[in-house]
């Protein structure tokens, strides 16, 4: 048995991953052998490393299938990897000032984030059922640890444990599905599976395998009915960790979801489309109504993220290239909004410490107008009001659904957006129309920068970023077939 690796240059498509893993191990060694805690140094180096990998991905692209079909690098995976890296960099950046308060100032935190990012990039590039599973486990295991990293806090530990137990359950389902797919096609490589499916009538066992696979992945993107862990974990985990959870892992899991459904199971698209439509509607509706009663900002964001996953899935359920393009755009915009929003929340430090309740934000506009403006912009964008980025993202996925004659799905989506406006606007009202109760400290520099960038992205999206992103997303979507 021979390998397809002839020399080091044959590995070029995997250079970003290799750089990340070598860098992570090096940083770990530096951290271990330093006498004192060098959190800031390691964190800075980790951000720098991911930045370098980002540059590598953008300016020295190299596509191909590696490791006898276990790993694939194409336009789609590159698009998603860029998003994941931006999400991780953003998460590390916003955790700098809050790390000590949240007991995250250990050098292991950036290292684990790096390894989680590596897992996500491997997930996006997974082209084989086995590498899919291993990558998913790498990502999940790092996230379990990161969630419980604040080990003296009962809530964080509970969040970590809950995430771990439910995550293990979902991995089990995914594995069960994968083994059934393997059993009924005799293949583990995704391309070969597609060929095997296309050969004949899909058997019921294969459909069962598909359902289990999608159930396992739906857990990772926290789509209803596998969303139960999300509010608890988001609330319990330290806020910088929540910022990380809400952004990058969702993008990676969504990319895998798209690759499996739109790419691998394309020959039986009618079967998975039903499932995707089902979980999409449930996610949008449940999130819109459940978020209304929330008083904790992080729980609210958790439900909001469930809803947004639902919206993104609307695009996928169209089962068309335009739909996948919509999903890619949606994830890019969602990522920017999430990071921006968390930068705002992490800069809300009153005399009592970091605030988490919505009622604590009363009168924010008077003491910290800049933060309040950014939060308001994010909220309007999350609702999907024009001319902000959120509107165009939703526009794209709904358009794809309409083109695929899923009119009622688009209608439900618009209605769910309308309902969700209620709780987003409640925050804006609290900030602008209530009497101030707390004094807020000035936002640290790096948070201001992140907020400013995110705000800029969301406001000027239609003139600046929108065009290039749409084009890249189109190329990415086209590369899946």
């Amino acid at each position, binding site marked *: *048995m*021979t*390998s397809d*690796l002839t020399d080091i240059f044959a590995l070029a498509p995997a250079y970003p991953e290799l750089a990340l*893993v070598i860098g992570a*191990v090096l940083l*770990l060694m530096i951290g271990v052998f330093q006498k004192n805690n060098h959190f800031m140094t390691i964190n800075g180096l980790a951000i720098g490393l991911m930045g370098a990998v980002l540059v590598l991905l953008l300016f020295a692209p190299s596509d191909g299938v*590696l*490791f*006898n079909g*276990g*790993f694939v690098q194409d336009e789609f995976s590159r698009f998603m990897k860029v998003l994941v890296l931006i999400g991780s960099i953003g998460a590390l950046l916003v955790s700098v000032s809050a790390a000590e308060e949240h007991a995250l100032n*250990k050098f*292991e935190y950036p*290292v*684990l984030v790096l*390894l989680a990012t*590596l897992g996500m990039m*491997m997930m996006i590039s997974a082209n084989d059922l*086995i*590498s899919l599973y*291993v*990558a998913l*486990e*790498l990502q999940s*295991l*790092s996230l*379990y*640890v990161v969630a*419980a*990293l604040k*080990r003296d806090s009962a809530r964080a530990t509970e969040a970590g444990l809950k995430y771990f137990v439910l995550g293990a359950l979902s991995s089990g389902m995914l594995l069960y599905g994968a083994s*059934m797919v393997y*059993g*009924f*096609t*005799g*293949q*583990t490589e995704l391309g070969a599976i597609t060929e095997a499916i296309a050969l004949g009538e899909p*058997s*019921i*066992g294969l459909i*069962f395998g598909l359902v289990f696979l999608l159930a396992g992945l739906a857990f990772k993107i926290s789509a209803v009915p596998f969303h139960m862990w999300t509010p608890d974990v988001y609330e319990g985990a330290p806020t910088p960790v929540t910022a990380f959870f809400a952004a990058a892992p969702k993008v990676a899991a969504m990319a895998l979801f798209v690759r499996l459904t739109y790419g691998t199971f394309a020959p039986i698209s009618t079967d998975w489309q039903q499932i995707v439509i089902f979980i999409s509607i449930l996610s949008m509706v449940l999130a819109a109504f459940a978020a209304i009663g929330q008083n904790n900002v992080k729980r609210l964001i958790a439900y909001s993220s469930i809803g947004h996953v639902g919206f993104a899935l609307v695009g996928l359920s169209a089962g068309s290239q335009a739909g996948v393009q919509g999903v890619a755009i949606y994830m890019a915009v969602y990522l920017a909004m999430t990071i921006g929003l968390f930068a705002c929340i992490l800069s809300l430090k009153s005399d009592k410490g970091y605030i988490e309740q919505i009622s604590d934000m009363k009168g924010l506009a008077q003491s910290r107008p800049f933060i309040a403006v950014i939060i308001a912009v994010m909220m309007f964008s999350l609702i999907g009001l024009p001319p902000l980025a959120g509107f165009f993202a939703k526009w794209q996925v709904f358009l794809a659904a309409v083109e695929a004659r899923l009119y009622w799905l688009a209608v439900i989506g618009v209605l769910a957006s309308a309902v969700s406006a209620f709780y987003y606007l409640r925050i804006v009202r609290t900030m602008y129309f209530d009497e101030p109760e707390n004094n807020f400290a000035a936002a640290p520099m790096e948070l201001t920068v992140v907020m400013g960038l995110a705000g800029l992205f969301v406001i000027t999206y239609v003139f600046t970023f929108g065009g290039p992103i749409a084009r890249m997303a189109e190329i990415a979507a086209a590369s899946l077939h």
Partner: protein
Amino acid sequence: MTLPLFFFYIFSAICIASALMVIASRNPVHSVLFLILAFVNAAGIFMLAGAEFLALILIVVYVGAVAVLFLFVVMMLDVDFAELGKGMLQYMPIAIVVGIIFGLELLMVAGSWFITPEVAGGSVLPIDAGVENTRALGQVIYTRYVYLFEAAGIVLLVAMIGAIVLTLRHKPGVRRQDIATQVGRRPKDAVEVVKVESGKGI
């Protein structure tokens, strides 16, 4: 009946019986011991199937290391199983439903095996009969599956980091052994020779 078949039935019978006893026995330590017995018999079945390397690795890893630690924990915890079992009945319906679903699916898998045996028989990696299986495994792990092998290594690294970062606490003020200082100590650092005049003391 051939000799291997005879041993297959013995191994599988003991394996199934001890697996049953794992959930049936009242004493948790006995459960773990039965679990170990089940592992060993499963290794025997592997051995009969010609997977000698897997069989022995199963014993080394699961029985020799994992189950020992497991046994440790069970021995030291005073688990009151009567207490634990109280809430069991109310979950029974769910358990039965899940069990039936999984059972049906297993039947389906087995059924398709009989209907289209050629699909299930198509192995991704056909085994070369002339090669002993340790060598055969080595030949694919480091070439064809090197990516997965390395990835699994990173997963284990993360598990190690996680275990350390979640449990290790540096207590201040603990006196630790420093071998170098101990060895480097000279007699004059520790002993003082004093000439004592008789009848006077020091």
